[in-house]
């Protein structure tokens, strides 16, 4: 499903060259739930961005869903992200001026799904995360856990094959964090969705199928 070979990422300025990732090799199968751990600044988010086609590697080969990264132009990458990937972020990234339903509908807008279908699909996604009664609320009327559940609904509304979660429980207390983790585990087991999750929490990482550790941009385990 996702294959990375000798992936490097180097950030260059005029004076400094910083290696964010070095020789990363990764093979994630369909339906697998992988967690990535490591200290801050070790390259976890960079790796997730490369897998999510939000960033390009400086070297190596990225192959997602059978397509090598160079085969995509920016428009094709946007389309791929829209149809195959779902993103969950630590800080939720909900648009404050849109209601919960409008936020969840966003990926479908770029897929040009009709208004009625969008509404139905968004409500179904919200129902699956237990927020059907909050469709008309605005993000500032929700708790942190509820916001993250809205973000999960937005990630799954288009039935993507891969979900990329960047510290989804990082801003939540343990109770809410566990709730969110349970939803992700259910998605993985029920829908066979491949999930790649960056986390700092050892307990959360233990619940996933596979764990890799990064240190200074290198894969150490």
């Amino acid at each position, binding site marked *: 499903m996702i294959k990375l070979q000798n992936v490097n990422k180097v950030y260059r300025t005029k004076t400094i060259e910083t290696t964010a990732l070095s020789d990363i090799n990764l093979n994630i199968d369909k339906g697998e739930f992988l967690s990535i751990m490591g200290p801050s600044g070790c390259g976890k*988010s*960079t790796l997730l*961005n490369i897998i*999510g086609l*939000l*960033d390009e590697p400086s070297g190596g080969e990225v192959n997602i869903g059978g397509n090598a990264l160079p085969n995509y132009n*920016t*428009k094709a990458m*946007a*389309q791929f*992200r*829209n*149809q195959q990937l779902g*993103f969950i*972020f630590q*800080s939720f*990234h909900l*648009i404050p*001026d*849109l209601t919960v339903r*409008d936020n969840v*509908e*966003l*990926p479908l*807008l*770029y*897929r040009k799904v009709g*208004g009625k279908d969008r509404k139905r699909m968004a409500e179904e996604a919200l129902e699956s995360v237990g927020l059907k009664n909050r469709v008309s609320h605005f993000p500032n009327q929700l708790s942190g856990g509820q916001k993250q559940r809205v973000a999960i609904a*937005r990630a799954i509304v288009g039935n993507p094959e891969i979900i990329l979660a960047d510290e989804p429980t990082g801003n939540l207390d343990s109770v809410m964090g566990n709730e969110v983790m349970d939803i992700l585990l259910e998605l993985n087991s029920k829908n066979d969705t491949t999930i790649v999750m960056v986390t700092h929490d050892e307990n959360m990482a233990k619940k996933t199928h596979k764990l890799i550790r990064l240190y200074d941009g290198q894969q150490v385990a």
Partner: protein
Amino acid sequence: MIKHIFILIWNKKGANALLLLEVLLAFIVLFAVLSFVFYNTDRLSDPLGFETENRKYISYGDLDNFNDSTRILVLEELKRSLLDLELVEEVSFGNDVGPFKSSNWCHGNDDLGFDISACYSVVEYDFIKTNGMNIVEGRDFTEHDLNATYQLMIGNQTFIEETFGEKNMIDSIIPFQGAETKIIGIMDEYKYNGEFEESANRVLLLSNPEFNGYARMTNAYLKMDPSADVAYEEKISYMVESTLKTSSYVIQDAPLLRKRSNLENWIPIVALLGMCVFLCLNVALGLFGVLSYSINRRKAEVGLRRAIGAHAGSIIQQFTFEVLFLAGLAVLFGAFFAVQIPIMNVMDVDSSVFYRGILYATLIVLVVVTICALYPSIQASRIHPAIALHED
């Protein structure tokens, strides 16, 4: 997508209201200034009705140092003396109402079922010839007309058309200034207050002491040979002073008067247009600043949209459309109020002036807003999604 953008705009109505107000005010100011400019420049296309090239005007006032009978003789002598000068081709007299005199004598009544109103000049028989005016129908005054049994009139086309419509009025008798007046000719135009004057009812009455003796011939109009230079005014001056026995007179150059009159009208037009350019610049800079700030605050949103499938083009479209929609709404409000002026006939001005004002103000506002919206939108589309998502 359009509905989605409407929702976004509506949910940010508080912040958007100020932007809408700014564009609305800019539109109203532009509409007012452009309408004023069109109103003035439209009148430039109408003919002036008389020549100014190689013309000089002499104003000498009432000549109170002479009694009525002597005054006529003195003026006849002045005319003869001036015509004796080698480079003076024509001389004619007129009252205080003449080219660039800023003076009006007007008459109005509704006798015979016609609302007859016009501003008039009392002139000598060769006034039309001296000033290079154009008779389009009927005839000019002649020397023999001094013995006419009626007061004689030549009206401009506007006067004839607005007062009598399509009727043939040549040789018709109408009441005018308390005397039976015969219309003997129609001139194309006589905008004696200058090129920016609106075409209005204007007539020339032949000077005749029996009908209009109250109107003294206070001005002489001269047609000069093209070779007469400014120094030649000295000879004219000597002639006037020695004949009229007074130094209270002014010799003016007609092209200069025309230029000065035009300048008086162009100055406010150019000043207002200059203010409009500054206004547009201010609005543009204001909009640019507001949009750049707003888009900067929405970096995370841009990152998110890129992550979930928006490409650069759709980001540009979204931000530009948001601003253009607001500007369009402001223009719509403004146009709604502006269009009431011609519809309700608030001002006695050709309605096309206001419609053109609305059209051009709309175009200018939309072009300025599009330019100001495009650049920040393009910048937004270039935000790297990974960086934008990480910044929040």
